[in-house]
């Protein structure tokens, strides 16, 4: 059986044209997807968490959920973290659970595009959907990101190569890559501009000053870039962790947001973050509509309070403030700083994941779940905020994240 137009649950591109072939409830072929997508679908059944575990002993799902709820309700200050690689329904339940527990809840943006959110809170953000880029952009800038290796189909589907309403091919577009090193993406560019690490903020700020007639110190190649930005008909800047996670963080993003904003005095210019996990945009969205804040939220007062740095997971863990943790669809032990993840090993940690991960290895309770977008339906938001329906292409006896969380909520309320 061939499932057409399946949404790929891997990166923020959220490609929705994947053709997945299944035989006897096994995925046997994947078409249209990039290499990563293919691998995600074809290997989704490998390295699975085979059973619910408590203290590394096999238990029933009910027992594991019961133990998890016991840990969470007995904790003074539990932490819920993850969310970006699961569907919105699960995220909504996770937020509800956090509210009931008076917990802290954070999502992976806090170690990724959190600074983009902070920048937006300061300066606003002039953005557009990816189809606008495809249809109209004649100047495309990738700053501090490497889509050729991280968002593999971005060039082909959304920006450089596709035929759009008003741009028929790559020939009608200029592509600029700005980065601290010559990346695979730079090879696609018509212009590659290399900058020294840690100079994004000053470069962008000088560009903005030059735009306002004051940036004499700006190198000529960037003066030239600003002139082209002013002259283009429809410009777009995509940016990645090169801006958000280098020195300056949200100040870098803030500068870029203001530069793009001010370019709209001259022409049409937009800016869009290259979001990583396929539903990290959804995690920010669900948290915002339920709590008002997209990440780093604490419910201990009985209402949501947000303060990145205070309630962001890395910080809560590093300060050893939480006494239990529920990790959903994420692997913080693999990517958090040691002082943070070590605390996860010291407290009762519960993991909900389809697969064995470094975090599941240190967890007190492991709950195997269905893989969203392959074994479970749901909603996910693309990097530009477009919501799409994830599909279920194979059956599983395992419950979805949403179903497990909903059981936890029932037990907490009981």
């Amino acid at each position, binding site marked *: 059986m061939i499932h*057409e*137009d399946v*949404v790929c649950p891997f990166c923020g591109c959220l490609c*929705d*044209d994947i053709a997945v072939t299944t035989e006897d409830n096994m995925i046997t072929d994947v078409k249209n997807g990039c290499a990563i997508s293919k691998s995600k679908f074809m290997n989704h059944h490998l390295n699975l968490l085979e059973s619910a575990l408590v203290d590394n002993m096999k238990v029933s799902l009910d027992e594991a959920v019961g133990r998890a709820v016991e840990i969470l309700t007995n904790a003074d200050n539990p932490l819920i973290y993850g969310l970006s690689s699961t569907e*919105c329904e699960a995220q*909504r339940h996770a937020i*509800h659970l956090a*509210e*009931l527990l008076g917990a802290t809840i954070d999502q992976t943006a806090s170690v990724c595009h959190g600074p983009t*959110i902070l920048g*937006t*809170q*300061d300066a*606003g*953000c*002039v*953005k*557009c*959907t*990816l*189809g*606008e880029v*495809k*249809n*109209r952009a004649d100047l495309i800038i990738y700053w501090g990101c490497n889509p050729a290796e991280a968002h593999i189909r971005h060039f082909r589907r*959304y920006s450089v190569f596709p035929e*759009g*309403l*008003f741009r028929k091919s790559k020939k009608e577009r200029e592509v600029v890559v700005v980065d601290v090193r010559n990346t695979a993406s730079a090879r696609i560019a018509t212009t590659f501009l290399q900058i020294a690490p840690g100079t994004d903020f000053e470069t962008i700020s000088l560009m903005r000053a030059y735009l306002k007639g004051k940036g004499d110190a700006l190198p000529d190649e960037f003066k030239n870039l600003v002139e082209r930005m002013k002259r283009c*008909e*429809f410009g777009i800047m995509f940016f990645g962790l090169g801006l958000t996670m280098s020195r300056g963080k949200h100040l870098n993003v803030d500068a870029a947001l203001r530069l793009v*904003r001010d370019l*709209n005095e001259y*022409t*049409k210019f*937009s800016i869009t973050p290259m979001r990583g996990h396929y539903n990290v945009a959804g995690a*920010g*969205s669900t948290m*915002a*509509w*339920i*709590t*008002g*804040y*997209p990440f780093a939220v604490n*419910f201990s*007062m*009985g*209402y*949501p*309070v*947000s303060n990145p740095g205070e309630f962001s997971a890395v910080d809560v863990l590093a300060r050893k403030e939480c006494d239990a943790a529920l990790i959903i669809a994420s692997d913080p032990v693999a990517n958090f700083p040691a002082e943070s993840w070590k605390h996860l090993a010291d407290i009762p940690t519960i993991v909900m994941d389809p697969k064995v991960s470094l975090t599941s290895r240190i967890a007190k309770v492991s709950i195997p779940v269905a893989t969203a977008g392959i074994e479970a339906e749901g*909603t996910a*938001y693309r990097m530009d*905020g*477009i*919501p*799409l*329906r994830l599909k279920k292409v194979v059956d599983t006896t395992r419950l979805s994240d949403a179903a497990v969380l909903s059981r936890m909520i029932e037990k907490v309320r009981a």
Partner: protein
Amino acid sequence: MIIKNGTVYDPANNINGEKVDIFIEKGKIVDESELRDKKEIEASGLVVLPGGVEIHTHIAGSKVNIARIMRPEDHRKDVVRKTPYQRSGTGYTVPTTFTIGYRYAEMGYTTVWEAAAPPLGARHSHEELLDIPIVDKGIFTLMGSNYFVLKYTEEGEFEKLKNFVAWLLHATKGYAVKIVNPGGVESWKWGKNVSSLDDTVQNFNVTPREILKNLARAADELHLPHSIHVHCNNLGSPGNYAITRETIEMLSPYRRHITHIQFNSYAGEDWGTFTSGGSDIAATLNKSKNVTCDVGQVIFGDATTMTADGPWQHTLFKLSGNKWANSDVEMETGAGIVPYRFKKKNVVNAIQWSIGLEVLLLTEDPYKVFLTTDHPNAGPFYHYPQVMELLMSRKKREEMLETVHPLVKERSVLPSIEREYSLSDLAVVTRAGTARALGMTAKGHLGVGADADISIYRFDEEQIQKSFQKAAYTIKDGVIVVKDGTVVADHMGKTYVLDVKADLSEEERQIFSKYYTVQVSNYPVEEAYLPQKEVVTCR
């Protein structure tokens, strides 16, 4: 359930302050003979109205949520604790979803319409509606700069356009055709705008006049329950009352609803000579048929402006210097968001405030003009009771006029208006009139067969605002959801959709796959987002 001895105002059934008992069974208002559940609400001395019907608000979807994300400073000063019946949340001008449902219900409102859903983001709008409790709800679908609408208008292919409108309503699970700055939103995608009904849209040989006429005709021929819902061109600009008047007149004889008309009733040539065009607009409404409007009344204080009118939001960003978000959507529409503060001592703001009241008071037929604040553009919806008081009391208006910029007395006719709304008038502009304009036959009245959506108030003539701020009871689907202004039940309302059906042609599918970035099969909103729906027949 019986609501006993209440003083009932049900203008749609010509009941004007009479003692009438109301009988409720299985969520509907029934004849006494059908009553089984004899539970009583003793309502002597209380005023009984149909549940409020909100015709235009921004409560769900991408632009609302961008505003929430962008404004942490807004939420901090207004927090909502969880209770056994209530999820927690935050306000202030862009409240969270649960809080929106509760605050409408606390005020006695039971039906609310999200007035602007981008089709490509409709799934998002519906997902947020799932987290808005108590009230019935639905969305209007943005069409005024849609590629296919522009294409078929340019080609003179009306039947194709009509079919597309039907398909888009079906695909987005929308209820009405929303038009924002027709043509201008497309032009904004190149940083341009349109400024008259006969300007040409960038890259399309069409004018706002043609777009409006075509969509108005399509909405009428499809027998949609609500007319086209129009945010006119030139919103916010001095002198724009002229284009508003022209839009109302040239669309005759089609049905049309002009939304937040206050923002489009400005006379004067520039900000220096800014003056009210409210009385002129009211005169136009008085002499026109098949037209309704809502006002978008200014509330002094904080607001968050958000609209598909991208070019206007860029102007407002430049005027205010506040942070600005813009969000253009491929093939369809766009949006802009700018925080704003309406100040009593700012002459333009003060005149804006007077205009909404002028239009509400000078339009003779209350079935033509409705109370809104275009939440949260002119202020948060839960300040409606402030406006109700000003409508019902000339004395309160005079007191207020003493506190605002003195030039209002010269540039607005508000000080000379004597009219005071009756409770019946008020019930029309917040209930009976909006329900009728929306084609919702079971809402806005208390006759047999109506939905048992009812609000009951402790009405005190000396404290009108306080009377309407918190309902003594709000009853939704026959369930007491609010008592003494507090939510007392966990209840979910329905999402309203239409029974329109249409298919895309092969040519349309090809255009779609070429120029959208999602597959056409993944575009329509799935039934999963409508666990409780009410399907309305178009006839």
